[in-house]
Structure formats: C-alpha cells, structure tokens
C-alpha cells in the first residue's frame, strides 16, 4: 500500500491488488496515510498462492476491475477527499462499577480480553509518579493510527494492565523502541506473520522492578514480567490503533502478544550483558525490542560445549527460512560451560551463522524452483543439488545471545522468520526520575511470598 502511495505522490495513477480478505486492512492503511482514495482491487487469489490455476482464475475475474481502476475518471471525493472529523474523546469516558467498566472497555475493543484495572484520575496520578515528564508530553505518534503517545495515555494503559508506577520509565523507553524505525514495528506489529514484541531488560532496573531472569522467567507469576508486556500491548492497541483482523492481520496470532518480557541474568553470565554489546554502560538500564514468531525450547544434547552448540545449530531455525533474526536464551550453567572452553558471544554467533544449515530440498526456494523468488535468491534453484547445505543465518549479527533461566538443561530460541533483510532490533536506555529510590522503596515489597505446604 505504501508503495502505491509513493507512486501516486509522483503523479502516477496506480491500483493495488490485494486478497479480498485484506481489503479493509488496505483501506485502513490508505486512510491513515492520508490517501483514502487509493484504488484497491480485491481479488480472490489465495494468499501467497503457488497454484497457477488458482492465480489464473482469481486474476481473470479481477481484470475488468484492474483496467477500470487505471482508466475510470476520478470522482469528486477521489480528487479531493473530505477531511475526517477528528475524534475527540472526553477525559472521563465511562462511570460505573468494576464489571461495568470492564464490559464497556472490552466492548470498545480496548482490552486484551483479560479484566483490566479501571484507570481513574487517582490511579493514573499515582502511575505518573514513575516519571518526571509532564502528563501531556508526547513521546511520539504510534502508527498506523498515529495516535499521540502522551505520558498520560501511557500511564492510563499501564494502570489498565495492572503495572506498578515503577514500570513507567521502562514503558516510556519501550514506546521509544516502538517508534524507532529500526524496530520495524510498522511491519511486525501488523503482519500476517504474527510477530510478538519480545522485551529484554538489562541493568540495575531489573532488581528495582523484580523482573524475573531465573526459573520460569517467561511463565506467568511475576507482576513486572506480566504487566510490562501487557501494558505495551495495550499501548500498541489503544495508541497505535492496531486492531485484530483489521490492521493486525496475524494469521494465527501469537500468545506472546499478551506479554513476553525477560531480564538478562547478568550476575550469572560470564559474558558482557546485552546492553554493553549494544554500546551502553553496564550500569545503564535498557530495554531491547525485537519481534520473534516462535518460541522453541530445546533439551541440550550434552552439557559440554559440543553438546550445547550442537543443540543450538540443529534447532536454530524451525521455519527453514533464509534470513530472519534469532535470539538464544542460554541458561547460566551452559553459558559458564561454554566460557570455560573459551567461547565468547561473538565466537558463538559466528559458529551459529556458519553451521546452521538445512539441505536445499527443505527450502521453499527448492520446492517452487525459484518461482516467486527473484534476484539473488533465484540462483539457489539453478545451481544447487537437493542435498547441498544452505546457510540459514548468513550474518552473525542476526544472532542475539542472552543469559537467563533457572537450573536444568533446557535452552530456548526465539526466531523471527523472514521479515526485513538484516533483521533489526533496538535498545533504548531507560531514564529514571530523580526520586527513583523512594518510589522503588514504596513498591519493593510487592512480590509473591510462597508459603510452604
């Protein structure tokens, strides 16, 4: 859609062929980009279709519409679209009991389906103690709706998610990460691939917020891990305006969209933590964002370097695609075993890139003889034999390694198939308000204390 808008801006009449189920998504994108009249031609070819007969049938049926889209004179509205009235919502949107508030918000499409905490003036004021920024400060505008991410709207969504005020600095940095073009949020936030934001927290703030980096770090049960990801999900929905099945066209969706937050266990890692790799100081607190599709857990083939690294490279890429981005969560005991044998993060990344391969016949490029794969990749289908190993991670920079997890012998990978070439991710420094220590103290004891039974 954005390409068609680029063409129209260069005064060339354009049409866009989309599968009929994506017409509403395309209209929403055109409208948000200020060109609601773009001529969208819905067609019935199945998505990513590889069956020539079905393409033939679908395009034959659409040909008259394509020609008309290029030649039919413009209507008055297409020539100069009428500006939409800007929606202005009252500050207090609803008054009612707990269940009534929840039902109202749910029906408006403002929740993730789970109950929310009503965001009252008092609760939002308390949330705002987590930042020194004024409530009306605009951190940025989140696409596709270009909703203004004011500090107050971030706080409202944070209250709804059940976050503590100490999460505010991290949430603001999270919004900055979303806004950074290198996060590719504009693609991953809405794509059919159902990418989920994965948030990695480094630095002293991990302890201030009790963000879990140990046993079950990615399981429910920790208020920080649970509510930070949830709050950012609500921010994406309610500020960015990404709605399921309209803008978010994720085919199957992703449970990680509820929350996917982890801290790196820096204390038990033999290596530099992620924020240092990213150019920050060890004492800096940061949040890193990338968008994986899959979460894969592997039992190590062995606990020595060979066993650990074999597990990684044989299981690194469940989608058998070339490219993408890979994050490996190595447990502390494995990290120490590797370091003991001289393996640093860079050496491991290079090893993974060199040795993560698949036989050519397993790739879609082989199956379809290069059809639909254009340019450089087409040489794959011309020059190689079915059993030839193809390197799936051609750039070691497309590998991230963090240390986290509890005792045991499992490791995990989060894999982002496809997406942008040289798949990108972003790290943002978290800025703390001056009275941070007092705020942390106020909320420090909010953590589960399990009784023995």
């Amino acid at each position: 859609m954005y390409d068609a808008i680029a063409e129209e801006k260069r005064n060339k009449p354009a049409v866009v062929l989309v599968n009929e189920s994506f017409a509403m998504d395309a209209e929403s994108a055109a409208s948000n980009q200020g060109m609601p009249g773009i001529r969208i031609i819905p067609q019935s070819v199945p998505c990513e279709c590889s069956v020539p007969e079905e393409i033939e049938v679908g395009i034959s049926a659409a040909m008259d519409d394509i020609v008309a889209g290029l030649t039919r004179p413009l209507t008055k509205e297409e020539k100069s679209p009428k500006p939409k009235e800007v929606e202005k919502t009252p500050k207090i949107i609803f008054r009612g009991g707990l269940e009534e508030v929840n039902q109202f918000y749910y029906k408006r499409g403002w929740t993730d389906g789970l109950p929310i905490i009503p965001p009252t003036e008092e609760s939002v004021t308390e949330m705002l103690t987590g930042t020194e920024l004024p409530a009306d400060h605009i951190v940025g505008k989140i696409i596709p709706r270009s909703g203004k991410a004011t500090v107050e709207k971030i706080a409202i969504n944070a209250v709804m998610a059940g976050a503590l005020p100490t999460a505010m600095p991290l949430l603001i940095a999270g919004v900055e990460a979303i806004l950074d073009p290198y996060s590719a949020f504009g693609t991953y936030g809405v794509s059919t691939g159902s990418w989920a934001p994965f948030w990695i927290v480094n630095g002293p703030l991990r302890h201030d917020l009790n963000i879990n980096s140990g046993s079950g770090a990615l399981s429910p049960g920790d208020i920080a891990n649970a509510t930070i990801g949830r709050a950012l999900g609500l921010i994406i929905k309610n500020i960015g305006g990404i709605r399921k099945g309209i803008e978010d066209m994720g085919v199957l969706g992703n449970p990680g969209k509820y929350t996917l937050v982890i801290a790196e266990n820096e204390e038990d890692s033999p290596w530099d933590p992620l924020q240092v790799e990213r150019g920050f100081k060890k004492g800096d607190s940061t949040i890193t964002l990338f968008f994986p599709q899959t979460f894969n857990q592997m039992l190590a083939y062995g606990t020595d370097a060979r066993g650990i690294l074999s597990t990684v490279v044989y299981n690194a890429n469940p989608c058998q695609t070339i490219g993408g981005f890979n994050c490996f969560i190595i447990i502390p005991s494995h990290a120490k075993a590797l370091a003991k044998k001289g393996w640093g993060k860079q050496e491991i990344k290079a090893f993974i890139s060199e040795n993560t391969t698949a036989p050519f016949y397993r790739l879609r490029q082989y199956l379809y003889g290069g059809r639909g794969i254009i340019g450089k990749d087409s040489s794959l289908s011309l020059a190689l034999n079915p059993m030839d190993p193809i390197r799936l991670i051609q750039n070691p920079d497309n590998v991230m390694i963090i240390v986290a997890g509890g005792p045991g012998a499992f490791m995990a990978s989060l894999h982002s198939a496809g997406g942008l070439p040289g798949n990108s991710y972003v790290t943002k420094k978290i800025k703390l308000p001056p009275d941070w220590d007092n705020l942390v103290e106020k909320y420090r004891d909010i953590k589960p204390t399990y009784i023995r039974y």
Partner: protein
Amino acid sequence: MGRSHQMKTNSNGHYDALSPWADVDPVSLRGISPRIANLVGKKIGLFCNFKPGAKPILSVVEAKLKEKYPSIQTSNFVFLHNICIDDSEEKANFDQWIKEVDTVINAVGD
C-alpha cells in the same frame, strides 16, 4: 499504599474511568492522480513487492493485459524489502523507473 489508592472509587462506589484511546492530529488528505484514458499504447508498470506470491500474480496480469492490448509495454520493478520504497536505498532507481511508466499495477502477494 499505592494499590489501594489506585482502586479508589467515587462516593457512589463507581469508577470514573479515563479513556486509553489516543488523540490524533488531523491528517491532511490528498487526492489520487488522474487516470489515463485507456491502456492502448501505454507503458504499464508492474510493481512487485517482497512476498513470493506477488510475482506470479503480476505475471498473469501482464499476460492478460498483453492479450487484450497488444500495443502495451510493461516494465517490472521488483522491491524485495519489507519497508517503504521512499525509506530504502532503491529510492533513486524507483524514481527513475516511475518516470518511464504511464500507470502502475501493484501486487502484494496477499
């Protein structure tokens, strides 16, 4: 403490709940370009995005157009990146290509 404070209701036991939905600035709208009168003798641009399904669709479109309008020419632009063309390193190539075509058909692949 913070949590009990956060759950405070008004005197009727109700919550006065604030809206999480963001305000937006008005979007300045732009019309689309005038259409061409007909396709006869025209050069049609076929813009193929990164999705594998796009190219086969455009191949069929191209064949059908040439069948119906033998005088047309076509020109393909293949853009394999999942970002806006204006933000890419191929912008200059695109600018050159777009000057040479009369109209464009885009395929997304889904």
